[in-house]
């Protein structure tokens, strides 16, 4: 059985088939990239997995558990974290509190304990903070701890979003265009981090990406989509030379 599996996943908006019976599997510890032209349904698949949308039909399995009917907030508890294409950070909060929100799934304190800020709450807070500090070190975010998100440049925000996802200690991470809006140097950093996530933290990565250099550099396998359907699946070079993929990008 595969680690993560989507079976005949479909998402229809009226007559538009954004995702049209897509099936794929992710093996534990691999980096799988989804590529495709604009509007191919890549982000829709991510939104289906993180349950922002409900599929018209089809099923999603994670660790042999059917998660198709799981509520959106339950997905993170299962160990699936994500980033967003357009950055969804908590703008008027500091970097630290953004990252601490990432620890939310691991918080065990009750409301009344928090109102009194009992020693157990303090101990929990420190434990969370320790984990956050590890992520900060992993992604070199030390200069930004107390900064408000609203004052930070785009490239840094992108990294903070990744950091927030990592703070929840996910088993599977969904990266929606991790390199969009980044310059060449920042994209290089991103590719190292993605590989480190796999090799050092043992996280399985599923990502949507347009930058083919990044895709080639980090992916174990690639899926090409167009019009909500799978065109090709395989190693990066196989997929890039697949006639259907070439036709989709360049026109037949």
């Amino acid at each position, binding site marked *: 059985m595969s680690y993560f599996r989507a079976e005949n996943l479909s998402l229809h908006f009226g007559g538009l088939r954004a995702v049209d019976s897509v099936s794929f599997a992710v093996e534990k510890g691999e980096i799988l990239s989804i590529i495709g032209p604009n509007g191919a349904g890549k982000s829709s698949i991510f939104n289906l997995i993180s349950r922002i949308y409900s599929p018209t039909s089809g099923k999603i399995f994670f660790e042999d558990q059917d998660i198709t009917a799981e509520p959106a907030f339950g997905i993170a508890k299962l160990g699936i974290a994500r980033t967003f294409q357009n950055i*969804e950070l908590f703008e008027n909060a500091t970097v630290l509190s953004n990252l601490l929100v990432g620890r939310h799934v691991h918080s065990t304190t009750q409301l009344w304990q*928090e109102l009194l800020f009992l020693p157990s709450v303090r101990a929990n807070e420190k434990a969370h903070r320790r984990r956050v500090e590890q992520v900060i070190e992993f992604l070199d975010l030390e200069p930004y701890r107390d900064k408000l998100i609203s004052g930070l440049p785009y490239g840094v925000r992108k990294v903070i979003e990744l950091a927030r996802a990592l703070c929840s200690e996910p088993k599977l991470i969904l990266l929606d265009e991790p390199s969009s809006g980044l310059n060449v140097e920042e994209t290089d950093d991103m590719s190292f981090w993605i590989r480190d996530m796999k090799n050092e933290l043992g996280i399985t990565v599923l990502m949507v990406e347009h930058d083919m250099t990044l895709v080639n550099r980090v992916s174990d396998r690639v899926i090409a989509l167009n019009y909500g359907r799978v065109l090709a699946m395989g190693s990066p070079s196989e997929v890039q030379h697949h006639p259907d993929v070439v036709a989709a990008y360049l026109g037949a």
Partner: protein
Amino acid sequence: MRFLFKTDYDDDIRLLPHSGYVYSYGLLLAVLLIAPHVLSSYLMSQLVFVCIYATVGVGLLILTGFTGQASLGHAAFLAIGAYTAAYLQQFDVPFPVYFLAAGLLTGVVGALVGFPALRLQGIYLVIATISFAFIVEEILARWESVTHGNEGMRVKTMQLLGTSVSRDSPTFYYLCLAVLVLTIIGTLNLLRSPTGRAFVAIRDSETAARSMGINVSLYKVKSFAISAAITGFAGVLFAHKLSFISPEMFTLQLSIEFIIVILIGGTFSLHGAVLGAIFLVMIDPFLTYLKDDMPGVIAGVAAAFGAGKERAGHIQDAVAAFASANGLKGAIYGIIIVVFVLFEPLGLYGRWLKIKLFFQLFPLYKRATFKRQKIYVKSERNR
């Protein structure tokens, strides 16, 4: 400028980050504690109202400022707290019991209001909370067996630990102050815990909050309940202070006053609730001044500039008529809100921070420091 070198995670958790805070808040507390021995009874009465309004302000800040859910129905929560106290008093229930019962009941009502509010955003939520407030007002007027309808209810003098506490006594002031301080400390504790961060997360991006594992509906209901409960506690004190309550005291205008408290004070910090409450309580003396002294002053100025006696008298009458016109208070509220939203969206506390920074950085202060830019499009469609 002071630089804090943090050596421990506790440095980020602490409520008073350094000794400066300890001294200034200690001084403030000392001043507030000796106030009854120094200030006149009129000013003490105003100070009690500041405490009550600030408590409501803190409650409203949790919901509107930190969770991002607007409410124009907090007068109704205040009313529920006040009426619970007045009702239970009839059965000789002791103060601590009906105080807690009022908070609890209001909290439950707040949670119930929170459920339908889950599906509503922005202006629609405001409309829903206004209608809730009207419903409560109607119920208070019609449910005569419990609320005595439009006749209103008399609130007996508070009995605390076997002694009666008059509404003008220092003890009553200390009680209000204690409620305010405890509310603020509890709220600050909440804000540095997972729940408070979840509130802020929901305010800034519901989609991201959800994908981080936050049960958005649950936390919205929690926020409504906590906010309402705090307002309910304040309602008990409000009832005691006024010693008589009737439905027409808990109108839309009162809800707007609460919005003014947090809007004028600043919606991003608890300081805002206190500063806003002080500001709001000062509006009434200002109106009295406008009514009593202003016409004479203006007429005097006119006379000094050479206007004849008759003409000065006309001016005095005109100003007096203007100052005692119906609805002047509402108009002033409206103007205040518009002016603050346009020129000082961060409120009085924001202004205070700017002034402080100006002197800390002098002469290097930049105006742009406080300019917030919202550059990136957020995926509203995914809400």
